[in-house]
């Protein structure tokens, strides 16, 4: 079975056709439990997310702030395995028919086996992968296997990326481009970085791929602000915070993430 890169592109195109940004939600697999994480993914789709990124938790999440570190830690202590991550992708996609990506660090994929991981992710119905510590110059092996299995390779670009570098990255990427709104790790911020709009503009000058903005977006107002200039709005820590705040009450946590997805889905439709 081939991966769902086309489904991903279609979802982004559909949002554009509605003159709005797509809403992309991030949730770590295995958090608060494997089954709870699957339900959370379904709930954010139900609330209005267009695309979900499933985090494959890592022991050393150097790009994540305290919120996602805490969730990763809970998931790993709970014994989450790559098989559980793939089951999360499979069930979230099967229940909704919507595109699901995996976001993780490179070592788990490298260790599991690049071909094996790509084949199994595609077989589970995955649409692609975001590997934020695998820069473009180290990515040839991954891209070869991702392409073979119909998976998108979503690269991250940062405000510090120079124009020539942006062109190199977007030429190698597929699906969409993940524009980091600011220089920093994941986590909610009071405001979205002012550099985000400039980065989207510079990125779009190099590619026809959709450009989606993540890092620091946590509420409908910020989503609307970003939606004015980005093809997609990516929200992670704010969802994880809702689940953490429920403190073990899964039903309350699911209601929380569904409600947040609903608010953000309204936000991405208020781009003007």
């Amino acid at each position, binding site marked *: 079975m081939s991966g769902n890169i086309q489904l991903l592109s279609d979802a982004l195109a559909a949002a554009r056709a509605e003159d709005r940004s797509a809403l992309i939600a991030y949730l770590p697999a295995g958090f608060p439990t494997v089954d709870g994480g699957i339900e959370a993914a379904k709930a954010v789709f139900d609330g209005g997310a267009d695309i979900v990124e499933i985090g494959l938790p890592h022991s050393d999440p150097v790009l994540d702030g305290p919120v996602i570190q805490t969730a990763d830690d809970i998931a790993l202590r709970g014994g989450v*395995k790559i098989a559980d991550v793939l089951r999360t992708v499979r069930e979230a996609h099967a229940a909704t028919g919507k595109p699901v990506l995996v976001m993780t660090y490179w070592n*788990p*994929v490298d260790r599991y086996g690049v071909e094996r991981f790509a084949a199994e992710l595609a077989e589970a119905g995955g649409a692609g992968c975001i590997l934020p510590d695998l*820069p473009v110059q180290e990515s040839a092996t991954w891209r070869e296997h991702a392409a073979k299995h119909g998976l998108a390779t979503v690269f*991250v670009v*940062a405000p510090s990326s120079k124009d020539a570098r942006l062109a190199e990255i977007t030429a190698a990427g597929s699906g969409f481009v993940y524009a980091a709104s600011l*220089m920093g790790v994941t986590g909610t911020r009071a405001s979205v970085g002012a550099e985000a709009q400039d980065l989207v503009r510079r990125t779009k000058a190099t590619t026809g791929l959709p450009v989606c903005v993540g890092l620091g977006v946590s509420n409908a107002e910020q989503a609307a602000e970003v939606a004015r200039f980005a093809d997609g709005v990516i929200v992670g820590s704010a969802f994880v915070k809702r689940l953490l705040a429920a403190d073990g009450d899964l039903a309350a946590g699911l209601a929380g993430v569904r409600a947040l997805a609903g608010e953000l889905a309204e936000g991405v439709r208020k781009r003007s």
Partner: protein
Amino acid sequence: MSSEFFLPDPEGHVPSAEGYFGAFGGTFIPEALVAAVDEVAAEYEKAKADPAFAAELNDLMVNYTGRPSALTEVPRFAREAGGARIFLKREDLNHTGSHKINNVLGQALLTKRMGKTRVIAETGAGQHGVATATACALFGLDCTIYMGELDTERQALNVARMRMLGAEVIAVKSGSRTLKDAINEAFRDWVANVDRTHYLFGTVAGPHPFPAMVRDFHRVIGVEARRQLLERAGRLPDAAVACVGGGSNAIGLFHAFLPDTGVRLVGCEPAGHGIETGEHAATLTAGEPGILHGSRSYVLQDDEGQITEPYSISAGLDYPGIGPEHAYLKDSGRAEYRAVTDDDAMRALRLLSETEGIIPAIESAHALAGALELGRELGEDGLILVNLSGRGDKDMDTAARYFGLYDTDAAVEADTDAAGAEIEGDAK
């Protein structure tokens, strides 16, 4: 490049343009750091070609660090080494008490050249943190040191030294609360503050160019020792021995001997409570290739690529990774790596103290234990060079508890087991 102490890029041993030593190395970093790491690499290339940089660094090495460091023969200690002669390269006599100052002064000068005003660093035993805080005091740079919470407890003296020097010390509470976690937190800081901040990385790991650059700043160790030993013993050693955590003092010692194929290069890893117990930090002995902190090398990890928590009595060696050049030297067979337990290292620490009046760091004591073992293997004609990478002042509390050297129970508080149960228990 001709200069006495700064000796970069030995012909034939540089990494590839992409920073690879064979299959190991590379640049596995977030995009947000690519420009900063490229800037470090470019500035280092410019600095290497600039005689003023070498001149300033050489002046510091002589008049601030106190180079060249001594070479000391230790015959009373060597009695337990099967009759082999043992010489110690005395990096413990450098200003700040370890080899770490060699790299720190080089990168501090580089920080100034890049116009950055703030330095961050990780530290395990505190030696790199102290050296970095020292250089920042010297050059008027803001300084933040990340240190695992466990390490701030077992190396409390060095925490006080860093604060005395004006540095901010942040105790990292995540993960195993040791060196690995301190590096994670330093990377998070760097991503957020990269405009004005240089990450003064303390070992020969990390993304390119750090493994090669940090090695270059430490090459002076082996170059001096080789020359000193030829003068004193009239020949090259049978083996050059060093402890390896991340691997900076070892690569500094080994590099000058790479072309001398008759010289065995022996790295001593921390076996902790024993490899078979799983409580160790012997990355090259028990690890598998993987990616940690920006480069591909050997890593202690499980089947799914999660990094496993290391253990060593020595905070400076308590790390689940290793510099990529060591991985390359291991696979090529040019260097060999053996594992030394906590107990063997502590025995060597006490033996050197009592026979020679030199109290080594617990890190360096792993190399001393390895040298005793090698000496017995080599026999009477053996000649061994050991890098004594640091002094043991910082370890007195750990050692006093381990050996039961405190007079009163109060000093040991609730520690009922004089063999260091509290310290070991905390490290799990």
